[in-house]
């Protein structure tokens, strides 16, 4: 039981980070970022290249992942999303753009990094063993702690800095924020870059444990969508709850139903649909997003 709970915390912390980036982008621009999973994969590959291939220290490689994704996110927002949002009659057109970007990033990953599964050397050796009831490799514990630290500092950024206040204002009401003197264009770009950066950071963290491959992008996006739906779209606390809940459900389901294979995911999907039928806006969401 302790093992299952520890696995849940570990999965939940990572999932929460993925969902945070997605929900931030959604809250700010009303864009459902299909390319989020691909950004996560790119983050993983950047860390793989720097840490796994060139031997740069892990923390520095992580920073490189963040920087790369932040720049990528800023460029995508500035030159693609912002003009399309201005020019389209229905705002759903951004979904086509997001899907196009997802395809594009997939193609770039395929050309640059290839289709093989990649892994990096362990960042820490040894296994934490508490009476054989709770076994956890040290590197997983480290990654989990790093993820929690990142989430806490992200919340701190949103709550206590000027940028965070501007972003929250933008998420609440775009027009009102503009009237109060918030530079909407600039902060949209910063917000998108921040969301992409979070995806890159998780990718960089997880490459040390699960490795990274091209096919992970789509699956990650779907999981991120589920977490955002559980918690409520566009709400930061909701994304964290969604991540933790999905993490625990997966940990418990895989432990109890491992012999049935994919049944766990089927059950999670079905319970999600039932949950959403009862509470369409998720746990914390505003009605009708």
């Amino acid at each position, binding site marked *: 039981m302790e093992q299952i709970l520890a696995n849940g915390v570990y999965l939940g912390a990572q999932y929460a980070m993925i969902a945070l980036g997605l929900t931030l982008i959604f809250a700010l621009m009303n864009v459902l970022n299909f390319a989020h999973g691909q950004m996560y994969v790119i983050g993983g590959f950047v860390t793989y290249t720097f840490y796994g291939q060139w031997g740069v220290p892990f923390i520095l490689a992580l920073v490189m992942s963040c920087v790369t994704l932040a720049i990528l996110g800023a460029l995508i927002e500035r030159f693609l999303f912002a003009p399309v949002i201005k020019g389209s009659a*229905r705002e759903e057109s951004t979904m*086509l753009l997001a899907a196009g970007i997802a395809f594009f990033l997939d193609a770039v990953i395929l050309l640059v990094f290839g289709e093989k599964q990649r892994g990096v050397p362990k960042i820490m050796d040894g296994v934490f063993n508490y009476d054989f009831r709770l076994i956890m490799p040290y590197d997983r514990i480290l990654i989990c702690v790093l993820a929690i630290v990142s989430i806490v500092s992200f919340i701190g950024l949103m709550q206590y800095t000027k940028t965070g206040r501007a972003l929250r204002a933008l998420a609440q009401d775009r027009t009102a924020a503009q009237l109060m003197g918030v530079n909407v264009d600039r902060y949209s770009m910063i917000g998108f870059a921040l969301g992409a950066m979070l995806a890159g950071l998780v990718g960089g963290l997880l490459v040390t444990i699960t490795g990274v491959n091209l096919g992970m992008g789509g699956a990650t996006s779907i999981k991120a969508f589920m977490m955002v739906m559980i918690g409520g779209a566009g709400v930061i606390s909701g994304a964290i709850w969604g991540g933790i809940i999905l993490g625990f459900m997966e940990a418990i389901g895989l432990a109890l139903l491992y012999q049935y294979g994919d049944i766990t995911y089927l059950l999670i999907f079905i319970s999600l*649909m039932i949950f959403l039928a009862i509470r369409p806006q998720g746990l914390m969401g505003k009605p009708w997003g």
Partner: protein
Amino acid sequence: MLKFSLKQFVGVGVFLVIIFIGVPLIIGATGRWDIYYTLTSVALLAIASAGVWLTFYIGRINIGQGAFALIGAYVSAILVVKAGWSFWISLPAAGLFAAVVAILIGLPILRLRGVYFAMITLVLTQVVTLTALALPITNGARGISNIPLPSGISVFGMSILPDFAAMENTKLAFYYTACIIMILTYAALYRLVNSRLGHLCRSMQQNEELASSIGVNISYIRIVIFAISSFFGGLGGAMFGSIAQSVYPSSFQVADSVNFMLNCFLGGLGYVFGPMLGTLVLYFGWDLLFEFGKYQMLIYSTVLIIIIRFLPNGLLSIRFNKGGDK
């Protein structure tokens, strides 16, 4: 009754002549028989995309058409292989089954709106794929293969539809069948959009609360529309399974659901024939780029991004950007 202008008559006439006479002549002259398969696929995907377009018409983003296409493909395959039905009866049965499933699932999930509906339909695709893997009747990951070709139908000794297995050129037969079903689908869609129901749908697209407050039964309409939409999905999927002669859980995946949605976006959400054009451009474009090998995806996605960057309202918006057709 609907009134058509002369221009519309001529347009439809030209279109029919092109697909039924022009295309076979050109293909016969150039000898590129493989294009039949591509065009048949386009026609079938356009049928499923028409369904997605219809849910857009009531203001919902539907990324779940792959689920219904897969359901349709499986129902038809199971009826033909295990129950020994004729394909031509299993085809509407597959569509109806998909529609019934859509009603059952739609009752709860159609209450969702905006991105919530989009995301739940995306998840639905995944659910159906996983269900197909888990159920015994669908044969799991091995799928159902060796589906026989459609057999002939004869009434009172008169042959109405020939036996596909006895034909020399099944590609041409499938092409004609797919085109006829596609034309029927779009005729039905056009009729529906220009009917009373279509007006009610437009009112829902603009504002559901307002429509409801002036007496539109929105919960009834959205179920009906979703069922029709899924019927098209099931129809397209069943026909696809019959042409490929096999169905696997991976026949229609999340990527296919997204593609159906992209077809509608690209063609333009304001035009009935938008999804047809979108499917043609996307599928044909993808096929043409095959020669570029590993750069296929890169070029394809770049073109896609450029199109949406400069024509955010769809391809058909070039022609109608003033005045607006509908």
